[in-house]
């Protein structure tokens, strides 16, 4: 029984340095001006990497049953699905822009809200 009192733990400080490093990279990637799509892919990729580190090591998901990992991943997949479900609505708005008045009138719309 005595052995069970002293559980093996991952090297948490290593995870901390990884998270800190990825945060610094994120900020460095976010500051310069360049293609929005590339920036979005890089930033979302880095954020997902950090989230996986937190879930796997701090929340010990890596050491739990596989079933739990499947349960946890499901809502993330549903969230991605949710974004795609909203795409037709966003695209419809973009199509309507073609028939919308020019940007000068749009600024006027903001002004009238004051």
């Amino acid at each position, binding site marked *: 029984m005595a052995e069970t*009192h002293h559980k093996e733990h991952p090297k*948490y400080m290593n995870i901390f340095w990884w998270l800190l490093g990825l945060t610094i990279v994120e900020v460095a990637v*976010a500051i310069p001006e360049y293609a929005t799509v590339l*920036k979005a892919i890089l*930033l979302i990729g880095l954020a997902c990497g950090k989230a996986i580190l937190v879930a796997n090591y701090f929340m010990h998901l890596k050491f739990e049953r596989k079933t739990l990992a499947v349960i946890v991943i499901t*809502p993330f997949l*549903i969230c991605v699905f949710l974004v795609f479900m909203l795409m037709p609505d966003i695209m419809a708005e973009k199509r309507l*822009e073609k028939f919308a008045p020019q940007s000068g009138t749009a600024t006027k719309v*903001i002004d009238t809200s004051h």
Partner: protein
Amino acid sequence: MEHATTLEQTEDVYEPSLTPDSLGKLGMWIFLVGDTMSFGALLAAYAAVRAGAGVIGWAPPDEILGINLTAFMTFLLICSSVTMVKALEAIQNGNVSRMCTFLGLTIAGGVIFLGLQVYEWNALIKHGLTLTEIPHHGLSGAAISGSTLFGPAFYTITGFHGLHVTGGVIYLIVILIHGLRGRYTAEFNHEVEIVGLYWHFVDLIWIMVFTFIYLL
């Protein structure tokens, strides 16, 4: 003998029954899965509102929000996650006072985070970011314009996360009080692990909020 073999086979096939420890942990995981959906829906709605801003456009977040303070807040939450796992590690090794110290540091991290969020909101409101308006000038001094939905989207998502941090700090204080009263030992500590799950989830969500709201 045949009956015994069948029982052994059954145990191999099915997972063991839930114990009080695993039941609590599973309960927290189920709550977190539901909460992920809440944040996921908010972030998806944010994406839809931003992409659908049309000709009015979306003001650049770095011009309104700035990222230096929030980058530090992210660092603070990461540090508090480390102190949280250190608290769990301490009690699993039977060291109650070390667990209480690390729990105290985790609470301090949460309180400082909330203080900084209040400071940030106050500065943004003074700068002109409200539920109905956006500032006329960015942090660089350049004129900015865009959808007035920027404010509601920002305050809803960061406010919802702030509420989670507040709940987490209260939850951690309760666990710390239990710890100081000697409730936890090397054998009985699943409640510390469960509060840790919640706290790391709050950290994980902030990683996403920081990326989507501040950096993109």
